[in-house]
């Protein structure tokens, strides 16, 4: 019984870590997309 509870807890912890990594990757994508958008709008303004 103890082992089952502990395994569930470990799975929960790993799930939380994976969620954190997923959101971090989405954040990096959002920021880099935003940078690309800003650079292209700067270029358009110069033209």
């Amino acid at each position, binding site marked *: 019984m103890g082992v089952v509870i*502990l395994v569930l807890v470990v799975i*929960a912890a790993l799930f*939380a870590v994976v969620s*954190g990594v997923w959101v*971090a990757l989405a*954040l990096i994508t959002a920021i880099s997309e935003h940078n690309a958008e800003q650079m292209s709008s700067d270029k358009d303004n110069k033209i």
Partner: protein
Amino acid sequence: MQTVLSVAVVGTYLVVLTFVAVRARAAREFAEFSLAKRALPLALVFGSLAATYVGPGFSIGFVGRGFKSGLLFLGIGLAYAVQNILVGLFVAPRLRRLKGCHTLGDAIGQKYDRKCQILAGIISVGLCAGFAAVMAKAGGDVLRSIFGLPHWSSVIVVVGITALYTTFGGLRASVITDAFQFSAFAILLPLMLLLVLMFHLNGGAATFAKEASAATTAGFDSTSPIKILGLVAAFLLGETLIPPYANRALASKTTSISRNGFVLAGLFSFVWFMVMIALGIAARSIIQGDIEEDKVLMKLVESTMPAAGYALLLVVLISIIMSSLDSLLNAGAVAFTQDIVKPFAKVPDGTALNIGRCATIIIAAIAAVGALAVPSIIGGLLICYTIWAPAILPVLIIGLWIKRPRPLAGILSMGIGTLVAIMFQFVFPSATEVPAIIPALGAALLAYILGHWIEKVYEERKRWE
């Protein structure tokens, strides 16, 4: 040495946070300030929702509850997960489908009338300021423990930094920084649990199960069934669709992202509670003697982690608090502009943006002053929950589901729900053993039915004349 390291780690964290906030750029129009142009992807909606609801109560508080009451609070927390999933399945998509809607007040205004929108706006702004004051107090407490500053100046630092990026960046900056803060605490605290389980748990799985059973029995012995019922009601309804959550439902890129964001956030909340409760149970075999609930997490870190671990925990706590605070400041400012100012005057977009920014600063100032009057973190949160659910939920949820909601029902339900909640909370706190949220919710529902019936009868009589 430990103080120097803590200050260095927290300082570095604040610099990185500022960099992330700057990358989010300043909002250029009100639609960007209030709804991030309705372009949020699933991961950011989910991360931001989770970052907003995981405050000091769902972290420090739950570890302490796990320590004292074992798995009891995991069962109670299940109500919160169910609430998020139900909102995701049934309410958030309906909310997202409404056109030109920036706030909950807007949704209520579209379904009822302008007066209802203004009243909902006043309640939203008041509640956001109240919740923000609680977060400001918690942030002040953490900073005071690092830098040893007086409490008022710690509060000003936390509120000042948060208000700065929220004022300029609006919802987009709030969501981007929330995602960053979510990643910090969703990775660090579960990793800490794994380290504790691997290297510090004396007696292994058998001890863990024994401690869980002993704590859970003690929890049931010290909590009456009526109190458990009240807690389940508070977790099920108290935080349902508070303004920052509603803003994220409205700002999602599509209806399905809005739905899935809430469902995922609900599933995550259960996982998160498991991690926090497990930390509390593990602490029982490590921390000896009696200890205050709110100090269990700090003590556990001190006993098991190196100095760098303690500094990282402070970063986690600041992340948890600031991510809730920025969402509340933005939601309050948007509700003020959209639900209180705009119904009275047609304002150009640039002016609306400036009003939103000024409102952010004013709500931040109110929160900083209010933080000094907040009795305790959990106490402050419970007061806000008790007022929010009866004041807004019946009107919003019934309004989204029935064909012709009546404005009188909306006004009566919001007014009476708020009054009864305040009466039971402040004037007659010991009038009944039942938590104030239950009678207040009952009164709000009755007032709604009464208002609906009166207006329906009046309309029918008018039709006959």
